[in-house]
């Protein structure tokens, strides 16, 4: 918290600063500090911490068509949600989704980063090209995927291409066996995410000292795989753990593309979509907030466990 203070204090004339220096610190510092930090802090408090506390309180209440706690029901909302039902099955959906998306994004973004690291010409160009989709909103991408690339009729892009090979039109988002909708969901998310994680990996790769590779060559590392396996990958440990963590949290929070592509489909509904419809659609804020608390706890536990196992944040 004291980081901001010296910067603000430096311009002050030395004699004044000396006079002002009292037991509690430099007086002139406080207004400037609060001027910059205050609004942010207030925003954080009002828009983040108050709603979180409010949600927790509300989750012990029967709150139908109201957000005022009062009709206390103890842990009943939690008990309801943790019985076999739509919320638990949405957690299963999430698990399936995460099992697909986390390793896939990890491998693809690492692969791209490795390739890009080798490229000597137009590196900035390629880096920008792969990173650009990150700037696109999930909603916009979902609509493009739904209406243009993967629409179910003959003039959808995917169906047009398949049509050249005599394949019949596929209703991508409506077909549940085989579950083609996963193709749409996963490809949209890949397109949006891979570039961002690629940049993280690229930064990690560029931090690896070339001397390590030289030493490996001298020691007789025979091929690219060996250098990758024994030099690159271990050196990327910190980045990899961070990327895994972010990917997992992101998967837990999947909402936009499911909401926009599949709506309220009980066969592929991640937890946040279910909670959205519970709270916003059914106006059942008691169960909605209880589910949000469960989800937040789950993310916290997984993050802590992962940090413990992989040593997130420790020095290399």
């Amino acid at each position, binding site marked *: 918290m004291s980081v901001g203070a010296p910067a603000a204090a430096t311009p002050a004339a030395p004699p004044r600063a000396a006079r002002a220096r009292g037991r509690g610190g430099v007086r002139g510092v406080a207004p400037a500090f*609060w001027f910059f930090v205050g609004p942010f802090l207030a925003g954080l408090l009002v828009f983040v911490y108050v709603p979180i506390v409010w949600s927790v309180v509300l989750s012990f209440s029967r709150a139908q068509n109201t957000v005022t706690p009062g009709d206390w029901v103890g842990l009943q909302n939690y008990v309801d949600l943790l019985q076999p039902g739509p919320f638990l099955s949405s957690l299963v959906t999430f698990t399936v989704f995460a099992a697909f998306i986390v390793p896939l994004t990890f491998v693809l973004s690492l692969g791209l980063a490795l390739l890009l690291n080798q490229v000597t010409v137009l590196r900035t160009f390629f880096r920008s090209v792969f990173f650009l989709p990150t700037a696109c909103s999930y909603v916009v991408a979902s609509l493009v995927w739904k209406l243009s690339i993967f629409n179910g009729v003959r003039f959808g892009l995917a169906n047009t291409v398949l049509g050249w090979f005599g394949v019949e039109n596929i209703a991508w988002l409506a077909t*549940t*066996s085989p579950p083609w909708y996963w193709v749409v969901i996963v490809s949209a998310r890949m397109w949006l995410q891979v570039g961002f994680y690629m940049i993280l990996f690229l930064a990690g790769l560029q931090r690896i000292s070339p001397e390590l590779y030289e030493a490996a060559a001298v020691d007789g590392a025979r091929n690219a795989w060996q250098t990758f396996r024994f030099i690159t990958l271990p050196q990327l440990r910190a980045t990899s753990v961070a990327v895994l963590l972010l990917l997992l949290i992101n998967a837990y929070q999947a909402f936009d593309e499911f909401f926009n592509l599949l709506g309220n489909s009980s066969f592929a509904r991640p937890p946040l979509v279910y909670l959205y419809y519970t709270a916003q659609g059914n106006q059942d804020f008691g169960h909605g907030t209880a589910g949000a608390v469960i989800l937040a706890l789950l993310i916290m536990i997984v993050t802590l466990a992962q940090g413990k196992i992989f040593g997130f944040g420790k020095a290399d």
Partner: protein
Amino acid sequence: MSGYEMNRRRFLTGLGLGAAAVGGAPLLAACGGGSSGLSGDQAGSGEGASGAKPQISVWYHQYGEAGTQQAVQKYAKAYPDADVKVQWTPGDYTSKLNSGLLSSSGPDTFESGVNIDQVRSEQVVPLDDLIAEVKDDYTAVDITSNTVDEQIYGIKIVDDMGVLYYRKSLLEKAGVQPPTTWDELIAASKELTTKDVKGLFIGNDAGVTPSFGGGALLGQILWAVGSDFLTPDNEPGFTGSEAKQSFLKLRELFDSGSILLGAPTDWWDPSSFTQGLAAMQWCGLWALPGIQKAVGDDFGVVPWPAYSSTVGKPSTFLGGWAAMVSAKAKDVEAAKAYVKWLWVDHAEFQEDFNLNYGFHIPPRKSLAARASKLQSGPAADALKIFNEYAVAPNPAWTPKMSAAYADAATAIVRKGGDVDANLATAEKAVRAELDRLFG
């Protein structure tokens, strides 16, 4: 360094400063509304400035037909006794309305459908006195479907219904009659399917997943066998054996590969039908003028078919929107006065809004009777279907019940789930809701 460190007192002082900097509650409240015109005037209902009129904020969902937004703005402007601000909402209107009703920055009056939970949690006010004089001019179902605990909470603005549109020429070519039973419908849909044209369009969700206006057939599945979501004495009505058979028929239709899925627009938009992507489409009466314009006389309408020639009956939904008043309105009486002025006293506005843009049925019987546009051709057929077969919504069928039932329908029809097990799960959720409401 120790001199720079902050202590708790400073931190707390800062919090106070920060809050002051943000400006406290009024500014925050102004963020939500999106109606910048209102935020400056905190004086309230306007008695402060001399001659200032009260302000009323009215919320509508986005009607698809051109000219509707201009129409409601025109009515608002014509109102002499208040400054009426129209909020026209594209996209997820229900969610926005629901959050609006929880806060004081929501609408004063709005269009919606009456729901028992809104009444029980005192979000809306009764409007009986507004239509007392003309109550008999509304159809009985338009009154009962807006009544909870013997009080009227919504005044119908438009009545909507669905019809099964079919292309006469395509049916003739395939030698198919407009379907009157589930089996005929399935057979016709298969028969009409070619390489580029599907037989039937009932929505990209196969009519069973209610998001973004989907779930168009959730009622028809039950009405086709003469059942309903809830029985008249508020028991679950979807677990009978005939209802289950009806579910299996819809699954058969879904599995037949003859229905259009993944179309760029959904069932409530006639584009798929007019562009020849499907030979038949379940769509609203509102689309009729557009269809007429696109395909001329080459179409007809029938109701959703009965289960069979001996079981059930044809059906359609009674939809539409009702004007309601928020209990949190800045001035409830002013908001009520506006609703009365617009939708009760001035019948010509109702007539204009129902008939001059898309096609709706004016809820006032006297207006529907003299609506010349509904007197001939397919529109007249539709009106007949409406009068004979329309099923009114039950305000006791809450969104939570509907969600549980739709989850079951989605699992059964689209995922091939077990009928008994899925409907039993839904029944349990619905019974819990009924217990909550009626003890």
